């Protein structure tokens, strides 16, 4: 769900982002931010490829990119700030939701439950995220500089067809793999009785998270499809005329 959804809010609000609201300083900052993020995810991509070539198998590639993944995915939380301050014309709530769901998977599932880190499902969503983010951040960089190559725009609105379900599958499988360990160790869970009369079962919470994908994933997926028609639709019309 987080895989391509991170692009959704920007698609919904800001592809033709009005730049009137921000000054040249903010513009420079955003360009630097997006360049740095593109570079960061490229590092992760390169790291994955190198580790695969070195080991010769898909297994356990997570460990080779663990640190940059955590750093750059957590860094994406700045985007919530960008919306709140107003230099990016997207909804704070939508962006917050998307970023935090990624951060949740990175820290509260993959990092916290050591046993799932060697699962292949982790590689599945990390790959989906990596490709998506490289395209997304380069899209923003070029948009901000008013020199958006059609290829990038096309990639952003086409790759999601595969990357999105791929990412969702990886995420769901990872959470599912984490369930038995969470139940066994009582991770992040609080039981009664206690002074503040509160209880929390992380295992049940994870199951609820998995269920929430059912209504949310189709909505976001079809939203991206609609955005694609809007953004790329007129290009096909021109080619028909010719």
């Amino acid at each position, binding site marked *: 769900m987080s895989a391509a959804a991170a692009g959704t809010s920007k698609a919904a609000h800001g592809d033709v982002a009005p730049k009137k609201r921000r000054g040249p300083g903010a513009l420079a900052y955003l360009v630097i931010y997006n360049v740095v993020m593109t570079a960061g995810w490229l590092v992760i991509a390169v790291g994955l490829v190198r580790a695969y070539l070195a080991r010769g198998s898909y297994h356990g590639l997570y460990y080779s990119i663990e640190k940059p993944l955590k750093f750059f995915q957590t860094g994406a939380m700045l985007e919530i700030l960008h919306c709140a301050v107003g230099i990016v014309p997207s909804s704070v709530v939508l962006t917050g939701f998307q970023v935090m769901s990624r951060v949740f998977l990175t820290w509260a599932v993959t990092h916290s439950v050591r046993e799932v880190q060697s699962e292949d499902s982790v590689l599945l969503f990390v790959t989906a995220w990596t490709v998506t983010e490289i395209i997304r951040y380069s899209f923003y960089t070029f948009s901000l500089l008013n020199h958006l190559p059609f290829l990038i725009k096309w990639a952003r609105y086409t790759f999601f067809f595969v990357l999105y379900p791929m990412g969702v599958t990886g995420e769901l499988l990872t959470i599912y793999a984490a369930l038995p360990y969470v139940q066994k160790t009582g991770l992040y869970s609080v039981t*009664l009785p206690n002074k503040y*009369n*509160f209880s929390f079962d992380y295992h049940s919470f994870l199951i609820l998270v998995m269920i929430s994908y059912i209504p949310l994933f189709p909505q976001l997926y079809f939203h991206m499809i609609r955005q694609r028609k809007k953004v790329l639709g007129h290009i096909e019309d021109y080619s028909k005329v010719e």
Partner: protein
Amino acid sequence: MSRTTFFEKCCRPGTGTIQVAVLDANTREQICFLDKVDPYSTIGNIKCLFQKSYPHWYPARQALKLDPKGKILRDEEILLHLPVGTTATMFFIDLGPQLGWTMVFLAEYIGPLLTYLLFYFRVPYIYSHRYASTSSPHPVVTRACACHTFHYVKRMIETIFVHRFTHGTMPLRIIVRNCAYYWGFSAWLAYYINHPLYTPPSYGEIQFNYGLIMFVMCELGNFSIHVTLNNLRGDGIRGRRYPIPTKNPFTWLFLFVSCPNYTYEVGAWVSFSIMTQCLPVAFYTLLGFIQMSIWAKGKHRAYSREFKDYPSLRMAIIPLIL
């Protein structure tokens, strides 16, 4: 006769009757044609006439516009004063099922009232089997139940006897959403307070009693403000004034805030959190505080804009702070 009367009598077309064509705003098809409509009819009258052709679309459910993308026409608007000729074309939108505000609030409040009691009496299948239909050994739990019940009974009485509502109705999906919020949260916090493993407050009776005193003060305050606001509205829409402190000491909070009713409401829930020492209650209080602050800020801004002499000392919801 004067020139203006001459023009009025001879040159204004159709001070006879007007014809109204109602088109569906989405399909642009004509769905109703009203002949020989009195030009002095209001939009409300048009809606009643419209309902004759479509009985299931009661007026509260109808939205009529002159332009499909334009504003919804208010019920009080008179046909003659609208920019229409002898044939008025209007666009219709179905707003969906609507419920009167009184019913809305009663539905929202009856849930917490009853669900809490279900948990208090430990109806079977909520808690473990051996606790079914037992009662808690802690007096705190019974008193908390009394407070919670009193809070919602007070709200329902106010809804029926005190509040006067401006807009007639509310859409069904909003009601469902609000009910889910109220009913869901009250079930969640009732679950913990009435749980067999409930732990009473750390500072015992003192903590509970201070909480109770604060709770009672806030409930009285909240009620006083509602009565004050109600009396304000009674003076009619034309004589608009903002609320000011009265002889009732609870209304003196108006010196510091625009919406003391929200302040007292938050205070009541804070005191309930202290009384029960229950984290879910504190969390619910926090959410309520955030929502009420948003409302209070909106109201505060509306007051400040409307009344040039609005006291500058007043904040929205928390004295001197927010």
